C-alpha cells in the first residue's frame, strides 16, 4: 500500500456519479464507502483507495470532469505501519 491514497469525493451531479462509477470499474478501485459503485450517489461522501500508480491518472480524470476531491489518507502504508505493534513494524 506504499503511497496508495484514499480520496474523499462528493459527486454533485448524476454525470459525475456516472463518471466515478466508470472509474471504479475501469481501474478496479477499492471502494471503502459505499462498498458498491451502484451505491454512489450525488451529494454523498465517497471514500476510495487508489493504488499509487493510478493516483495521478485518477486525479487528472477527476479534474477533467470538474469533480473536486480531498485526500483523506496520503499514504495508506504509513497508516498501516502505525496500526502495527511497535516491535512488529520495526521488524518489517
Amino acid at each position, binding site marked *: *500500500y506504499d503511497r496508495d491514497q*484514499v480520496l*474523499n469525493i462528493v459527486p454533485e451531479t448524476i454525470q459525475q456519479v456516472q463518471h466515478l462509477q466508470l472509474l471504479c470499474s475501469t481501474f478496479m478501485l*477499492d*471502494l*471503502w*464507502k*459505499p*462498498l*458498491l459503485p451502484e*451505491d454512489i450517489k450525488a451529494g454523498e*461522501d465517497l*471514500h476510495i*483507495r487508489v493504488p499509487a500508480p493510478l493516483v495521478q491518472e485518477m486525479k487528472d480524470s477527476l479534474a477533467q470532469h470538474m469533480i473536486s476531491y480531498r485526500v*483523506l*489518507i496520503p499514504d*495508506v502504508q504509513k*497508516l*498501516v505501519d*502505525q*496500526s*502495527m*505493534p511497535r516491535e512488529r513494524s520495526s521488524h518489517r
Partner: protein
Amino acid sequence: SGGYVYTEYHPMEEIYQWMTQIQKNNSELVTQHILGKTFENRTMYYLQISQPSNKTKKIIWMDCGIHAREWISPAFCQWFVKEILQNYKTDPKISRFLQNLDFYVLPVLNIDGYIYSWEEDRLWRKSRSPYENGTCYGTDLNRNFNSSWGSVGVSFNCSSDVFCGSGPESEPETRAVAQFIKSKKSDILCYLTIHSYGQLILTPYGSTTKPPSNNEELMQVAKEAAAALKGKYGTSYRVGSTASILYSNSGSSRDWAHTIGIPLSYTFELRDTGTHGFVLPADQIQPTCEETMLAVTMIIDYVDKK
C-alpha cells in the same frame, strides 16, 4: 487483565492466549466455549461472562471482527470484557447487569480473515473459503446470513468484497453463529455487532426501508446512547436503519438476528469518519473503546431495566 496490552492490536494467536488467560484468571465469572470451526479449521471460541445464580438470566450477545480489516472491532470486544471484569465488584451498574444478564462475547468471528489481514493483506475483508476452483477467495460473512439473502447490496462475483457466498449460511463461520444464536434466541434480548468506521449506530433493516415493528424502541434506545456519547465525549454518532443512513444490504447478521425474534439488534460503526478509515492507528484504540463502552453500557442498561 494479566498484563495484556489493550491499547495495541493483537494477532489471533495472542487473542487465543488472551481468552485462555481471561478464563483462568476470572474462573468465578468467565467460561470459554467452542462455537464452531472456521473454513480453515480453526476453533471459534466465545466467552461467557456469567455470575453464578439460581435466577434465569437473559443474554446480551456481542460479536466482533466479522470483517477482517476492521481491527478496532476485536480490540473493542476485548476492551469490553476487560472493563466488565475489572469493574463488576466496584461499579454498581455493572454489578447490577451481572445479576440479571449474561454476556456472550465472540471476540473474532472471521478468524481466518483476521489472520490473513495480519499476515498477507491488511485490507482483507472477507472469510477465506475458495470459490470457482480457487480462482477467488472469501465471502463477506455479513452478507451471508439468511435474511433476504442475495437480494440487495451484494455481489455474486466471488472477487467482490461483498460476495454473499453460494447460499444463505454457506460459510461455516456464519452457520456456527446462526445455530448457536437460534438455540438461545428466546433468552437473547440484545444482539450487538461491532464494526469499524462511520460513527453510526445502525438498526434493522438493511434490506428494506420498511421499519421493524419495534422501530420506535430501537431508535429511542440508540438515540439515548448517541446522546450520551455526544454529551460526554462530543462524538457525533448518527442513528438510523442501515438502508436509510448507510446503504442497502441484505444477509447481515443484525437483520437476521432481529428477524428471528431478538428485539434489540444493532450494528456499531466505530469512531472514525474517514480520517483513518479501516486503518485506525493504535493510539486511537483507547479513546474509541472508552466512548463505545459508554454507548454500549447505555443500551445494556436499558435492556437490564426492561
